[in-house]
């Protein structure tokens, strides 16, 4: 969010959104009989609940509360957008994450309302019937559906390491075909956004990101898995703007991935005070001290976990005492070093690919993170002296 935005800017934005929604309203409706309000009511929610939810989403997208009624309007036109969800080289964790928002949460109602036309984990039909559903949806909603893809995509001479369907089409062919006619494309999860775990060295299946196999713009929603709020929020953003959201250098929506985990971390006070967990299970761990010295990658990771948390706010890795592993960053398996050690430590030697952790750390050192990494490490070292408990 641009905090310097003036009221005039918001007025313009508000006007743009309104026009966009009015335009969407004119599109043929999929379901003429049931409005979202009816559906929400039938599921035991009041209009108030709905507006509360719309308000929360508005705040999450860093928009002022005056946008809440517009957000509610946008949700109402959401039923014009069918969704096709494809599984590539993946673990189904992103689908599972989506399931966590399941009934009776309003998020899931929105999804039901949006209409999941093809989703292999959830759909009843198999085999030819499943394939028909996909083809029908692409044909029927050409240029209007949202494509969500989970998983990395095997490519090059190992493209056939993933095939889907009786005709043996490769995952790449299938994803490319579906991309061609999509209104918008979201890469859900780190695998689809950046290649993910299977693309870690030596990448035996030559797995690549979705953006590598289509020339169309792809919005990356990384995380392993991303929270369902980030998925729904991205969808809402698309509905409002009708264009890509403001993206960072890795095509991640800024509203979700703008800040570092470290910036809003609940343990930040301990970092500033120089109070660190030195070893898992020590007194510092019991007191909730900062996890930097046991490997937290929060200072180098851009995501909203520290604010949104997971499983309806139940917890997040830092709260559970582990620290961030940097899972929404590209190639984090190869670039973030050892999970339980600070990134700046070059103590541990690994040998894979002839690179080793030293080489990896050096490569990181060349990147923009240098200043941060050095600064953070210096702070950790200096504040240890300051810490009376040390």
């Amino acid at each position, binding site marked *: 969010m641009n905090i310097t935005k003036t009221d005039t800017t918001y007025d313009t934005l508000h006007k743009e959104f309104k026009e966009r929604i009015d335009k969407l309203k004119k599109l043929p409706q999929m*379901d*003429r*009989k*049931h409005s979202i309000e009816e559906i929400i009511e*039938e599921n035991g929610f009041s209009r108030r609940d709905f507006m509360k939810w719309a308000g929360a989403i508005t705040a999450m997208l860093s928009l002022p509360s005056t946008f809440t009624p517009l957000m509610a309007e946008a949700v109402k036109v959401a039923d014009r957008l069918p969704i096709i969800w494809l599984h590539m*080289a993946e*673990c189904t*964790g*992103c689908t*599972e*994450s989506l*399931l*966590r928002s399941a*009934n009776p*949460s309003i998020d899931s109602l929105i999804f039901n309302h949006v*209409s999941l*036309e093809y*989703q*292999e*984990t*959830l*759909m009843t039909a*198999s*085999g*030819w019937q499943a394939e*028909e559903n996909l083809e029908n949806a692409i044909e029927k909603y050409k240029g209007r559906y949202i494509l969500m893809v989970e998983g990395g995509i095997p490519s090059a001479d190992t493209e*056939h*390491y*993933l*095939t*889907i*369907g*009786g*005709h043996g089409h490769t*995952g790449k062919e299938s994803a490319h075909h579906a991309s061609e006619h999509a209104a918008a494309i979201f890469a859900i999860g780190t695998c689809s956004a950046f290649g993910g*775990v*299977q693309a*870690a060295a030596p990448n*035996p*299946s030559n797995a690549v990101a979705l953006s590598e196999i289509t020339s169309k713009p792809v919005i990356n929603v990384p995380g392993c*898995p991303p929270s369902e709020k980030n998925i729904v929020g991205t969808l809402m953003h698309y509905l409002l703007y009708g264009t890509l959201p403001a993206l960072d250098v890795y095509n991640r929506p800024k509203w979700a991935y703008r800040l570092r985990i470290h910036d809003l971390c609940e343990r930040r006070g301990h970092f500033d005070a120089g109070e660190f967990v030195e*070893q*898992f*299970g020590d007194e510092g*761990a019991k007191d909730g001290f900062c996890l930097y010295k046991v490997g937290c990658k929060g200072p180098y990771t851009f995501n909203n976990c520290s604010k949104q948390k*997971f*499983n309806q706010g*139940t*917890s997040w890795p830092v709260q*559970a*005492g*582990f620290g961030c*592993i940097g899972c929404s960053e590209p190639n984090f*398996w190869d670039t973030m070093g*050892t*999970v339980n050690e600070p990134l700046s430590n070059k103590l*541990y*030697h*690994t*040998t894979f690919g002839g690179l080793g952790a030293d080489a990896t750390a050096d490569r990181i050192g060349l990147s923009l993170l240098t200043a941060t990494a050095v600064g953070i490490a210096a702070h950790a070292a200096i504040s240890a002296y300051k810490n009376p408990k040390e």
Partner: protein
Amino acid sequence: MNDTNQTVEEVEEKVEEQPQPKSPSGPKRVVVDPITRIEGHLRAEVIVGDDGVVQDAFVSSTLWRGLEVIAKGRDPRNVPLIMQRICGVCTYSHYLKSTMAMENALGIKIPYNAELVRTLMDAALFLHDHVVHFYHLHGVDWVDIVSALDADLEKASKLAFKYSDNPIGTGVNELKKVKETVAKFATHPQGLGPFANAYWGHGTYKLTPEQNLIALSHYLKALEMQRLVAQMQAIFGGKNPHPQSLVIGGVTCVMDMLDPARMAEYMVKFKKIADFVNNAYYADIAMAAEMYKGEASVMKPMGVKNFMAFESMKVGKNDYLFDSGIIMDGDISKVLDIDISKITEDATHSWYKNDKALHPYDGETDGNYTGFVDGKSVGSDGKMIDTKNIDPEGKYSWIKSPRYDGKSMEVGPLAGILVSYVKGNKRVVKIVNEFLEKTGVPTEALFSTLGRTAARMLQAKLIADHGLTAFDNLIENLKVDQETCATYTIDKDKEYKGVGIGDVPRGMLSHWVRIKNGVVENYQAVVPSTWNAGPMDATGQKGPYEADLVGLKIKDITQPLEIIRIIHSYDPCIACAVHVMDTKGNKLSEYKVDPLYGGVCSV
């Protein structure tokens, strides 16, 4: 019939041997790909005779990612998190077994508190997995959603009391709402969304409209329950999927363990899901058992009657909910001990290079994809169409074929329940006997698709009834001991070997590691779905999936519901099943660490 491959010819010979009316068309091939409502990418191909009986069957996994290859050369502390990404459904299983393998290798004994917290997270996984599997993945194989529209509400509400003393979600008001929801969904101009183009009205659906409505109400309720159980795991795991609180040596969630409000939150949620398991899940399986016990396609005796399970779910000192052992050839008079040196893996029909028999630690891990062959199979309209088919003579799956003493084995909740039952595990004997008595089903009926589905529920009930024993013991122990993580060092000059093994929701899982120069030298995972879904071995012996499909009678070859039902009953997890293993015929015992069992399952 243009399909001229060897198997079809063989099949045709067989048909001739058994005098049957000459068919005009001969056996037909049916390809089911993708099989949906599972984790991963799976294809089944069957050869069906004119009598509708499956004569031969082949199962193929169509994705390979190579995570063990990626693990090599990495810091051992990073590897459990990488292995966790094998699967987001079994999101805790691989993380746990991989961490245990490292601890076993490094000779670490983790604190008792950590063992118990790990069990509490495991209990959440089992309860989550089994409930989601039955209702959201397998459920619509048994429950005809469209039929529920014809249900009489009063009758259905009363009927629910037949299966539970305290039914859940079956008041007339609640059922009315469910029915209306479905009615609206069914008349939606956009169709049934994810339920579209399915097998509604298929002749092998056996529940009455009222029973379908009861189960459907639980389907919706279960969506809510699974979210709750995921929260239960996240209390100690930080998030779900992919919890993140295990480290080599113990757990990191000490703050949550020492917070009474947090502990109470777990307990309250546990009781809610336990109630759901006992009064919805149990009731629905009892109902399905009653109605399906005469349905041949789910009562057909299974093809492989060898079972293997491994001790798991530590709830107290030397107290586990599941036992270890083997049952061979359906002989439930005795349980044999597992001798891990008898485990081998065969890759005759798997897409890996396996020409040279190398030591597992040096084993080649390169893929050798030979693909499918051009052929014909039955399309959705019943006409033969051009497809890519499995070549049964060649390689046809990314899954390998594990064998015990040369035999195919089934692993999973059915194996776990049977082994513990025959061993006389008191908790299990009570639960199984009660169920058999209530449903009037004989013990032998457990050896079927229905039995497998029922055993999964019985395992969930076992955990629902006794999982909190671990919770109580944790509370007691925390009063005197607050250790949560052991310390250790990795000596770069030493070589380590270790294994983490035990039953997870889909059956016996083992992770094998060798550490050298302070990094992972070799890594292997032998996974439940590999045991169950593997292709034929060198001798032509089939794995449980394939063997179970042979002899199955299919009503309508364009509507492969019976095939899907059998395969779903195993709860396939195909991303898990696909792994690089050692080369053909090599013994896993060569990973053996002494003492193998002494320290292996300390967790």
